[in-house]
């Protein structure tokens, strides 16, 4: 293959090949290879998930009530979201309902994760793609202060404050030990922020690092720790005791006050620091309109944050639900996770094997046998790969498709679907931001659009936490303190053979778990996670996944510095430990496949 047309892109692998491995500032392992033409424009992109842990094989035969703890360890960055999908899948299979308070507390925990994850992503995983740390040394703290004060009334904005930060940064750089900033792409022409904005962003990088540890204390109150708080099939483990004997051993007024104060501070930080920074940075990059990929064509969201406990229908879900295909923004299709025709996974380009690799399999029928083999055009050796052969199998990630289409998931998908559905909570913030930046709606289909949607969602989630907190208080006022339903806690009460699914909107996008319980044990478990959708390799039709599509046609300022590649990949917030999953449904031992 030298030239190949798909989804409106022309793939051409004749130009110079650039390899980025490891891709850093993501969760897990990832490798990207691109071909650039003589103008350093990307004409072919190959993304490879380079790790596999086999968690679903490990789940087989275990107690379904334990599954949340295992699946939670799929990812420690979006911690809790897999646990939520898992308890929902088990409850769906066994017909367990949860009390309203449990639903509210779960929503608070999930929204808390959304805010935390988006904040850490923006400042600590993504900002260095937009912000030149070294340039901040040249800033004038007074003009930086003026810039900051023009954006918001956040109190930490005096010239003296920024001078202190700058002095600390100067000392750090002068020490010669640059730590995390060693070998960054400082001075690359693709950085467009003026020095003042860079200094402000560095200050907020550090502030956000301090503040993010506060947000997660909501997890700690209800789940006991973070990362990896505790969950429970049938509700939440924390009991509520407002004014009875032993209230100090449960969720009481002091705990509620702590949660409330965190929510208030979170709203303040997001609205006074995160959103203004985002707007400012976007303003400087408003004409860098690359990285849209398939976001203007195919988008998917399952929806999340049920208002009513145990109702996962579209009317109850506050986060948008639906699928957009073929760029038809006038129609949003309903998504059914139990329909075998809708969600299917393919492995023609993944290091797994199916009996018939031209066909996809629904998660309930999923099959995963590892099959590590490299294509004939691979350069290097089996344990020292220099160049991947994308015409053969080339990733530990499978290729999920919705009715045959590669789909982009994540905050951008949610906002576009919400916008198309006319949901004011998702439409108005987008329109407002676009007005501020003086950009048309189409501008949202870009790297920057993804990053902006994430910030807007963080703000939405922070405010929603306050809304759910009030709901919790009104329940408590009405005397409802139940947090768990234990009617079907005892496995003896379970049916012999049942299937279920659970879903959520993880920070990175639509997440689904499918479970099959037989004889009170897990017979089969499958998770299709956001980065499997976004990072999927090619399918039998040669369609490329969202990562690969998003890199297409992006010009690189300097071919040997992959700044723009990182920028676009990071806009998806990849999570590779999540994406490379596996399942062996019929109890086969995992065989090591020898490759000739």
């Amino acid at each position: 293959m030298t030239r190949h047309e798909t989804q409106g892109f022309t793939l051409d692998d004749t130009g110079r090949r650039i390899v980025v491995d490891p891709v850093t500032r993501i969760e897990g392992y990832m490798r990207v290879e691109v071909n650039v033409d003589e103008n350093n424009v990307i004409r072919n992109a190959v993304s490879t998930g380079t790790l596999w842990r086999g968690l679903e094989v490990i789940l087989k035969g275990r107690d379904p009530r334990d599954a949340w703890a295992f699946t939670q360890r799929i990812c420690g960055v979006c911690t809790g979201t897999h646990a939520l999908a898992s308890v929902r899948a088990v409850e769906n299979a066994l017909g367990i309902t949860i009390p309203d308070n449990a639903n509210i507390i779960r929503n608070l925990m999930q929204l808390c994760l959304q805010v935390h994850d988006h904040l850490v992503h923006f400042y600590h995983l993504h900002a260095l793609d937009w912000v030149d740390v070294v340039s901040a040394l040249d800033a004038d703290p007074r003009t930086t202060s003026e810039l900051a004060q023009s954006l918001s009334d956040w109190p930490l904005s005096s010239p003296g404050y920024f001078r202190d930060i700058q002095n600390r940064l100067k000392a750090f750089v002068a020490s010669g030990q640059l730590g995390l900033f060693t070998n960054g792409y400082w001075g690359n022409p693709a950085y467009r922020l003026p020095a003042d904005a860079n200094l402000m962003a560095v200050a907020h990088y550090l502030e956000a690092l301090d503040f993010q540890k506060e947000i997660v204390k909501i997890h700690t109150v209800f789940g006991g720790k973070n990362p990896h708080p505790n969950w429970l099939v049938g509700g939440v483990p924390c009991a509520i005791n407002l004014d009875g004997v032993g209230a100090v051993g449960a969720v009481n007024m002091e705990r509620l006050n702590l949660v409330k104060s965190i929510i208030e501070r979170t709203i303040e930080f997001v609205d006074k620091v995160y959103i203004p920074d985002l707007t400012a940075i976007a303003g400087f990059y408003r004409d860098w309109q690359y990285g849209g990929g398939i976001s203007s064509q195919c988008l998917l969201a399952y929806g999340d944050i049920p208002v009513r406990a145990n109702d996962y229908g579209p009317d109850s879900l506050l986060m948008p639900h639906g699928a957009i295909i073929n760029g038809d923004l006038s129609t949003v299709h309903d998504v059914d996770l139990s329909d075998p025709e809708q969600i299917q996974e393919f492995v023609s380009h993944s290091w797994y094997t199916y009996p018939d690799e031209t066909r996809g399999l629904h998660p309930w029928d999923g099959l995963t046998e590892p099959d590590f083999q490299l294509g004939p055009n691979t350069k290097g050796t089996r344990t020292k790969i220099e160049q991947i052969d994308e015409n053969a199998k080339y990733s530990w990630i499978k290729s999920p498709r919705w009715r045959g289409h590669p789909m982009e998931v994540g905050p951008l998908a949610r906002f576009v679907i919400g916008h198309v559905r006319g949901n004011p909570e998702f439409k108005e913030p987008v329109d407002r931001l676009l007005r501020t930046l003086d950009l048309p709606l189409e501008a949202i289909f870009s790297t920057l659009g993804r990053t902006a949607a994430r910030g807007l969602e963080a703000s939405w989630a922070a405010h929603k936490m306050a809304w759910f907190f009030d709901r919790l208080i009104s329940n408590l006022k009405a005397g409802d303190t139940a947090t768990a339903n234990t009617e079907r806690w005892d496995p003896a009460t379970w049916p012999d053979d049942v299937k279920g699914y659970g879903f959520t909107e993880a920070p990175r996008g639509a997440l689904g778990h499918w479970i099959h319980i037989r004889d009170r044990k897990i017979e089969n478990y499958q998770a299709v996670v956001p980065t499997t959708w976004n990072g999927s390799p090619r399918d039998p039709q040669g369609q490329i996944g969202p990562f690969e599509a998003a890199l297409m046609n992006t010009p690189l300022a300097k071919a040997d510095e992959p700044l723009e590649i990182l920028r676009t990949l990071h806009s998806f917030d990849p999570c590779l430990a999540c994406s490379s999953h596996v399942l062996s449904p019929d109890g086969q031992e995992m065989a090591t496949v020898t490759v000739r």
Partner: protein
Amino acid sequence: MNETFYDVLRRQGITRRSFMKFCSLMAASMGLGAGAVPKIAHALETKPRTPVLWIHGLECTCCTESFIRSAHPLAKDVLLSMLSLDYDDTLMAAAGHQAESILDTIREKYKGNYILAVEGNPPLGEEGMYAIQGGRPFVDKLRECAADAKHIIAWGSCASWGCVQAARPNPTQATPVHKVITDRPVIKVPGCPPIAEVMTAVITYMLTFDRAPELDRMGRPKMFYSQRIHDKCYRRPHFDAGQYVEAWDDEGARKGYCLYKMGCKGPTTYNACSTTRWNEGVSFPIQSGHGCLGCSEHDFWDQGSFYNRVANLSQFGVEANADTIGMTIAAGVGAGIAAHAAVSAVVRYRGKTGIDVPEHGE
């Protein structure tokens, strides 16, 4: 280049007074007396920042996430002032070969003087290619980085014991660090993840006193892992009294009774959760109503359901604990004895009517 920790702090505008305050806080947090303060101060004044290479194998990044939750010291201060985190895939600016070249630089320039921190573990199956970085198996990178390190820290239960990907049937042959690096001590800081302040305390202890912390038999720092969660659990009086949560959200749960019957693994788990607690001391699992999973213990995934009090014995199948095995066999033995007694009675009755046989004597 040979600027000390103290020099850097001074240049960063931190006064001598706040520096000494920091030293005494650090001494207190490590349970050291006031006498140690000048020692800490001296150590920090005379040493350059130690480079740390933080590499990731099969893991979920919860250890890195936990590390940045540290409140004392703040992650910000650790990264800017206490050490030089020159490589960490999750947080570093560089990528690709610019990132990989840092490893070579540090190994060469600071040979024998850097700390290697490992999060996650190497899979040994499929020639290590279940975890590929830079086109090569992670295990190669681990071996290379370990060769010239001054100390090796195994962050979390993955690096220490194997954790979730090593749970049965361990499809990738995920292997803890000390089984790959066998020629030198590995400081294990288990937990899934470890507590943030435990992580920062272990590493600042090493920087301050220029030595590895004292380790227990299993290779864990004694300062945080020498007692069980149970030993210092605030619900312990309810355990001794015999007051337990019998079902989720029952009266006992609301009164904060002991979670022993809900499968709490606090009595067999060595960690600092019940004292240091999580996220700046806000809570820990038992305080928030769920039993301890035992996440800092070896093979904690393979001891049966987290909600069982009596652990499963894997040797007898998936769902067999001592009581199920015991009761099954007890029923068998009981039935056997009854049957044997019945047959004996019949034989004895017949024997009375039959002919006596000569005795064998002794």
